[in-house]
């Protein structure tokens, strides 16, 4: 971890690896997609940019990566201004865009070689082999991309983004439209990358994804960065989860032994509802289930659910205004 040479404050803070200052974007159509965004990404973290469709996530990423021009504001990547010093800045960045855009007629290996060269790195077949092995595509290296499945194509895009050994990786909705198993694979891959020292910024509109992966979460809505928070803190704020136990048989009232837990009995007396905090460890589920067993209550189904992203956004936006 790099530390800033002379921290101005008493606390030693890591110098941000990406720094976005007062960034605004108005498209040619006159639409304002980003509105005075300020954001600092810490070295080595996984940062999740969470927001509904059309919030401005892709626009923000595209500007940092040099694909879209900013209307206002300044950005540095690893200390390099992305405009003035674009070569140094971009060499540090890898991007996996939202859309699966690949040269379908080319082979996996050739597109990877192109990517590495474009970013100014000398050929290194051994490294590219490692990248392809990491994304489980080594045995498909000579396949034309059009012959690959959707999940494989996405992995090709990731391999391309990694081909020049970036230290900052942007993943734009890496698991949108991806099935559960592939999503888990993706998450594992992201964690592995972070362990290797890569800073990761991903966008998502799945709160579970942000919760699963991120160290910090930024919430973006209508082009405004509504808040940036440590995940643990945010999750606490994001509220409650409900555990619903469907009982084998209806009960009259709660046994005395369960009084310590804030159970609610549903009106039809067949369900026990327990509302708890996702982060706060003191309300662990396990002791609760033990207590149920001890009380001799048999249940046939367990379900947990949380408030939807929309509700959370409404909450956050209301809280802020």
């Amino acid at each position: 971890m790099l530390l800033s040479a002379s921290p101005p404050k008493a606390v030693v803070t890591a110098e941000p690896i990406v720094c976005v200052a007062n960034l605004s974007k108005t498209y040619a159509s006159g639409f304002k997609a980003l509105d005075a965004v300020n954001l600092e990404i810490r070295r080595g973290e996984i940062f999740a940019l969470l927001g509904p469709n059309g919030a401005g996530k892709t626009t923000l990423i595209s500007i940092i990566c040099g694909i879209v021009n900013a209307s206002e504001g300044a950005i540095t990547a690893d200390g390099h201004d992305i405009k003035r010093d674009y070569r140094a800045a971009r060499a540090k960045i890898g991007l996996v865009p939202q859309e699966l855009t690949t040269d379908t007629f080319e082979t996996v290996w050739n597109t990877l070689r192109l990517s590495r060269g474009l970013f100014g790195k000398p050929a290194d077949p051994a490294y590219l082999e490692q990248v392809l092995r990491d994304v489980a595509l080594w045995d498909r290296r000579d396949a034309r991309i059009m012959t690959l499945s959707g999940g494989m194509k996405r992995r090709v895009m990731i391999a391309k983004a990694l081909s020049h050994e970036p230290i900052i990786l942007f993943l734009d909705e890496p698991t949108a439209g991806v099935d559960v198993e592939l999503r888990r694979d993706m998450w594992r891959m992201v964690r592995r990358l972070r362990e290797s020292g890569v800073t990761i910024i991903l966008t998502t509109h799945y709160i579970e994804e942000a919760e699963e992966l991120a160290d910090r979460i930024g919430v973006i809505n209508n082009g405004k960065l509504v808040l940036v928070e440590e995940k643990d803190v945010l999750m606490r704020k994001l509220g409650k989860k409900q555990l619903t136990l469907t009982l084998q048989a209806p009960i009259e009232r709660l046994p005395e032994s369960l009084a310590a837990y804030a159970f609610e009995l549903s009106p039809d007396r067949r369900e026990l509802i327990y509302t708890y905090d996702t982060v706060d460890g003191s309300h662990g589920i396990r002791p609760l289930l033990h207590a149920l067993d001890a009380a001799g209550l048999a249940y046939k189904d367990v379900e947990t659910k949380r408030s939807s992203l929309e509700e959370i956004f409404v909450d956050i936006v209301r809280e802020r205004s």
Partner: protein
Amino acid sequence: MNLYAIQAIYRYEMARTRRTLLQSIVAPVISTSLYFIVFGAAIGARMTAIDGVTYGAFIVPGLVMLSLLTQSISNASFGIYFPRFVGTIYEILSAPVSGVEVVIGYVGAAASKSILLGLIILATATLFVPLRIEHPLFMVLFLVLTAATFSLFGFVIGIWADNFEKLQVVPLIIVTPLTFLGGSFYSIDMLPHPWREVALFNPVVYLVSGFRWSFYGKGDVAVGVSLSMTLVFLALCLAAVIAIFRTGYRLKK
């Protein structure tokens, strides 16, 4: 200078040629051979020699130019239009490359391909007519300059076009007529009075004339004029490309 990037683009584009060998090399060779058979052998046999050069031999430089122009434009325009069309252009836009490097890579590959093609057509021509090259160095110079100029022009078209139709329309409506009227098949001296002067507004006349001069020592206009005009076109196309990258025209939102 990001030399690795230039090299990567160049290699990638050249690999595309190998993949589409039939379309890029074989097809133009066949069509040129047809020209030789029809114009050179069939019709040329009944034509008088022009400036002491048999008609079959006379049309060789023009035919090479014809292929050089159309292939340079189509190679280069397609080369940059395709990534824009499928979206892979994001990678080039996000890479630490300057516009100059992108142009050298793409235009260099397109020009190399058409030069190669021009040489193949020349070789094909020797099967049909006796060929003589008086100024080989100038011949190569015109070949390279023309390929570079029209590859740049094609690059501009590939960036300007936002659909496949536009990609084809410029070569079809402007370039093909200009090449046919540019003295590939005749000397513009053969044209009647007003048309000869009108022809001088056709840039292709200068290219064909200069190129033919390098073969037979005689052209429609002085070789110095041909060379200067070629350089002017090159400069114009370069200026257009520089403007595109300065402004991000059609590349960045």
